[in-house]
């Protein structure tokens, strides 16, 4: 009797303790910021909700298409409200240089150990991969054998007639120009900026539109405004799913990533780091491509068997596809030479 009472007291106490622990854990929260739209929805299902559940934390979300200026003003204000930001990797690195982003302690992010060194930096962990690929209209090039397959083909206006579009931005475009000029995908960096711009001058009269948003690149290809385009793989595959007669090749694609980084002085720093580790967990990562056409950043995701064989073939970071592509060096783009190249772009566009 006394024993059972003791047991009951103990179990009540244990329950109370657990409840306390639970509420203490539930009180842990972070503010996570990404780019919104279908992409953020896919992450929520594949990564954010499962991570929140597993860690027992609350993940509040915000979205903004262009996080960089806000990251800067938040840190400058001295009281940032964001913790973790999912942003193009170059902004994480630049943020690190400018003291806007926290330096990461990778001993607290064991899941990142399986990632290649190029996928992380002192300030960033790659989160997902996409690729700038050569896409084209199947009505214009119905025959795979005579379709453009490389940037050299894209530049060859005699052999491959048709209207063309490139992105109004130097990132990936300079890489494509150098590959068109014969540089091997794995020998691109440091970029020969002079040579790249010279090659771009060559194709410039044949570029109908320099696109600025991903949606625009898809619209141009879909409406037949252009026959060939450098665009992000997910934009073209989305068109294909809607029945558009378009396709793309991963050959000489430029593999790019967004990364997670933590704002300097983030209000929930320890929780943010815990989340960073959870976000690159192989299983969560493997779930992402089930909801959107982006590839996991943790290669171990491909060993989880969560992604079907057929699906693996479509993903930019799949080993077979990664092999034929160039991996963008964000370290180069945030170096002084890279920043100078970025500033030079407008001069090139105006002439």
């Amino acid at each position, binding site marked *: 009797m006394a024993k059972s009472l003791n047991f009951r007291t103990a179990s009540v106490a244990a329950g109370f303790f657990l409840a306390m622990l639970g509420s203490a854990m539930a009180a842990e929260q972070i503010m996570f910021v990404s780019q919104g739209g279908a992409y953020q929805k896919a992450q929520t299902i594949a990564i954010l909700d499962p991570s929140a559940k597993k860690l027992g934390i609350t993940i509040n979300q915000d979205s903004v298409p262009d996080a960089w200026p806000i990251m800067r003003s938040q840190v400058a204000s001295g009281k940032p409200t964001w913790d973790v930001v999912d942003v193009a990797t170059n902004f994480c690195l630049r943020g690190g240089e*400018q003291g806007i982003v926290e330096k990461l302690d990778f001993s607290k992010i064991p899941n990142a150990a399986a990632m290649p060194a190029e996928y992380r930096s002192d300030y960033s962990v790659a989160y997902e991969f996409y690729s700038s690929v050569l896409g084209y209209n199947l009505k214009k090039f119905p025959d795979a054998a005579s379709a453009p397959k490389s940037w050299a083909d894209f530049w060859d206006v005699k052999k491959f007639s048709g209207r063309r579009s490139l992105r109004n931005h130097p990132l990936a475009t300079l890489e494509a120009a150098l590959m068109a000029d014969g540089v091997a995908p794995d020998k691109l960096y440091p970029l020969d900026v002079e040579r790249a711009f010279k090659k771009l001058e060559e194709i410039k009269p044949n570029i109908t539109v320099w696109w600025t948003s991903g949606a625009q690149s898809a619209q141009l290809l879909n409406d037949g405004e252009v026959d060939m385009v450098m665009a992000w793989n997910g934009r073209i595959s989305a068109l294909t799913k809607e029945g558009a007669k378009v396709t793309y090749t991963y050959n000489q694609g430029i593999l790019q990533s967004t990364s997670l980084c933590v704002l300097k002085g983030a209000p929930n720093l320890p929780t943010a780091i815990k989340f960073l580790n959870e976000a690159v967990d192989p299983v969560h990562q493997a779930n992402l491509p089930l909801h959107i056409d982006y590839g996991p950043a943790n290669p171990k995701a491909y060993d989880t068997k969560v992604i079907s064989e057929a699906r693996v073939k479509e993903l930019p970071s799949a080993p077979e596809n990664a092999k034929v592509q160039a991996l963008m060096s964000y370290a180069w783009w945030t170096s002084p030479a890279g920043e100078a190249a970025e500033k030079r772009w407008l001069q090139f566009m*105006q002439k």
Partner: protein
Amino acid sequence: MTTQTIDPSLRHQRREQALMTLLAAPAVLVIVALVVIPVGWLAAQSIYDNGFTLEHYRRIFTEEVYWRSFALTFRIALMVTLLTLLLGYPVAYAAAHAKRPWNVLILACVMLPFWTSVLVRAYAWLVLLQRTGVANQLLERFGLITEPLAMVHNELGTVIATVHILLPFMVLPLYSTMQKIPRELMLAGASLGGGPLYSFLRIFLPLSLPGVVAGLTLVFVLTLGFYITPELLGGGRTVMISMVVSRNVELYAQWGAASAVGVVLLVCVLAIFAAVGRIIPLDKMLGQK
């Protein structure tokens, strides 16, 4: 005795003045809080970054990139302004002279697109003007062209859409001025033997000038700040100054790099106002009397 007496009308006038100042105070406060302080802050940032610096201005005045964008922006603004005047004057004239319900209908046609988002209208023009768009398809069907015309993804597309978006800003001041021109003056002109064209040129046109100047100034200044339209319809080559501002936020570590461009644009606009103000007094330009 004499010192004690104050002219009652003068006292009334003073009281009215005090009342007016009081009534204007909230508006002045709002302007100070939302315009004067931010603009001052903007200007301060462009010259202060851990110490006084003119680096951002040096860049603007030495790098060709800025000069090209300023030149392009002013050229587009000039074209848009003249085109809206050419298109807007007859419309305003018709609206001012038509009888009900026609004048209402004309104004409604002008105002209706005004209530549609700028973004939606930019995309609408894309659908109309692109290579496979409605305009090119019609022209091809009627055999007027064999190759689709490049009407968008260039400066032309930008100008067309901007003219459309800003047309109400030309028509409305014109209409309000024209409406106030007494009809009798034209009748008097006719009775003195002036033909319709002569009466128009000698009487109506000069009287409508304040509306013309108001419309020109509004449209010109608004065009200088256009961003979405050239971004969507300019094909990447039409780099207007607002796009340079946004680019500088991305490229440079200091806000000053972007705000200096804004300050230079603001100074240009004020200079234009000052120049125009010398020809036509500012109060007249804004439609008083």
